[in-house]
């Protein structure tokens, strides 16, 4: 707008008597609406156009995203928070004031850290935290490693490359719940399961994989296998697109120097792929920390079942949050909210640690 003066602008007196700048570039005069006398119309100011375009999205983002974040955070810091489904306002503060006004209520709400204390005393929370930790530590590196190896192999073949790539992409377009149920049937106990039939060919006795009395580690095995199956597609796709950008000269140079295939992989492929690896690592850690659907789909038999005799054997943090969120027990919602804040902190920590670790190892 600095060079506005250089254009042949003229001052026009509009109908209401105010003078406005008018240039051949009609709304080069930005941010001020004005009445165009010749065309009998009002030119909207630019800021108004911006807000009109933004408002539809903004309303929904505020009601269903910004406000819930603040509200849930607040709930986690209200002791004895209770919420009667449908009858009370969803605003934590309104509930809080209502409970103060209602002297007959036996439950007194106040601000504090009672929910966090409750959670840390809760055996189930520690179980959920431990399970989530195990899933993250075992599943993520395995999936990334397998995905990386497949991507490198896939990149170095020529015929049928597109076909294999499509095959490896298939799990991405499937429903995690549906395939979880198929894995549930494939890992049925006794001779009913496909997997038991397969290992039977090698003379191994059938294993009770997912049943209520199955061992913790057989369940874990199935969870990891299914997570790899379910998560590998996206990683292969990202690695493949990263590999296709690596200059082939590096490989030729390494081969002239007589480097072995493993050295090439370790010294060239991995460093040059490090931005993609970091990206996949961060997103996979977040995804694994939020495991939920795959696991309940695997165990089935009940709306929310995490295996074992009491249905909580492999409960995760997210499972813990939903369990308390839907519970009618008093103060359960506060625990769910506190759980979600802890999940947020965990995710932030995981991400920060990864960025710190990768600082000197990622080459852009």
């Amino acid at each position, binding site marked *: 707008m600095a060079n506005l003066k250089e254009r042949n602008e003229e001052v026009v007196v509009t109908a209401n008597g105010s003078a406005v700048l008018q240039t051949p570039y009609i709304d080069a005069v930005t941010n001020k609406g004005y009445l165009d006398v010749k065309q009998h119309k009002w030119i909207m100011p*630019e800021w108004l156009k*911006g807000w009109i375009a*933004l408002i539809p999205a903004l309303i*929904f983002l505020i009601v269903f995203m910004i406000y819930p974040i603040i509200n849930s955070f607040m709930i986690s810091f209200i002791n004895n928070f209770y919420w009667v489904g449908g009858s009370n306002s969803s605003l934590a503060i309104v509930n809080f004031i209502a409970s103060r006004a209602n002297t007959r209520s036996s439950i007194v709400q106040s601000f504090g850290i009672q929910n966090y204390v409750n959670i840390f005393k809760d055996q189930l929370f520690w179980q959920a935290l431990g399970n989530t930790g195990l899933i993250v530590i075992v599943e993520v590196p395995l999936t990334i490693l397998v995905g990386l190896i497949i991507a490198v192999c896939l990149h170095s*073949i020529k015929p049928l490359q597109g076909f294999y790539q499509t*095959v490896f992409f298939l799990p991405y377009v499937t429903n995690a719940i549906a*395939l979880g149920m198929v894995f549930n049937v494939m890992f049925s106990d006794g001779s009913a399961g496909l997997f038991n039939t397969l290992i039977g060919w090698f003379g191994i006795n059938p294993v009770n994989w997912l049943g209520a009395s199955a061992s913790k580690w057989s369940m874990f095995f199935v969870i990891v296998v299914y997570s790899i199956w379910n998560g590998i597609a996206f990683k292969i796709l990202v690695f493949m697109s990263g590999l296709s950008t690596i200059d082939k000269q590096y490989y*030729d140079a390494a081969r002239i120097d007589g480097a072995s295939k493993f050295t090439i992989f370790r010294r060239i492929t991995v460093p040059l792929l490090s931005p993609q690896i970091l990206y996949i690592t961060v997103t996979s850690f977040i995804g694994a920390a939020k495991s939920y659907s795959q696991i309940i789909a695997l165990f089935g038999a009940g709306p929310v079942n995490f295996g074992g005799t009491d249905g909580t054997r492999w409960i995760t943090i997210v499972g813990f949050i939903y369990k308390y969120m839907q519970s009618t027990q008093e103060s359960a919602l506060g625990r769910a909210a506190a759980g979600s804040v802890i999940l947020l902190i965990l995710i932030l920590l995981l991400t920060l640690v990864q960025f710190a670790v990768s600082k000197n190892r990622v080459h852009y």
Partner: protein
Amino acid sequence: MAEHEVYFASEAQMRRYKAQKIITQVLLYGFLTIMGLFIVIPFYYMIITSFKSTDAYNLEVQHGQLNLLLTSSNFSFEQYGKVMGKSGDFGTFYLNTIYTAVVSTAFTVVTSVLAAFAFARVNFKGKDLIFTILLGTMMIPGEMMMITNFQTTMALNWKDTFAALIFVHGVSVFYIFYLRQTFQQIPNELFLAAKVDGYGHFAYLWKCMIPIAMPTIVTIMILSLMGAWNAYIWPQLVASGKHPWLFGKNVHDMHLVSNGLMSKFQSTEFASDDPAKVTGSLFATIPLFIFFLIFRKYIMRGVSRSGIKG
């Protein structure tokens, strides 16, 4: 690897080199085939089991002899009848899911395009602050919002309505962000040229930006449709009962594909009927598969570029 000319000192060296190359190729294809089988086996198993009657399957289990081939002796459409029939009710799940997916995608695309346009092309105060706040929320896990959204839904009396399914996750910061970047890549000169031709902001958006950004918009549509099809947690919370006002009666089952599959086939009616369970899964998978086969290029390009799980 690049094709390159190789020179050898001797015949023996050349033979060794060629043998090595063949072995490498065999190992590569062998490994990829094994891993490919690992991916494909669940699909294969899903298909063959869906054609078995429950009695035949139970008999196989009793004898400890799973039939892993599709033979005429055990071929039956029993499961398909169950899944599409009254007890399985997959027809209703399909209708609900398609309706939700299409309407919410249309809603998402319209709001995201407008918002991205405002962020990319219009100058107004507070724009950058709002954008920064929205970007910040992308780090926050959805579970945290779900707690309050569930209450809001109940307070609005939206339980078991399509409104809860469509509007609560109707706007995505990620899509706005992704579209904004595409819009910003469109050169500014085009905007100035359009202005000279007398286009206002919205005419420019409609006639220039949307056509240019069409590949990104299609990607967003595809991701949004796939997301709606696979959504499980939120539908399970708010759409697991009967629709409260359709036809004045509480008759319309509100389940979508994923949570309908989970509640009907994994928990209640068919919990111990393995072939029915697997056939239900097949029905939840097939439509997305067909969709994938038609839009394969768009989906694979879109996913690798945008980098999210839909």
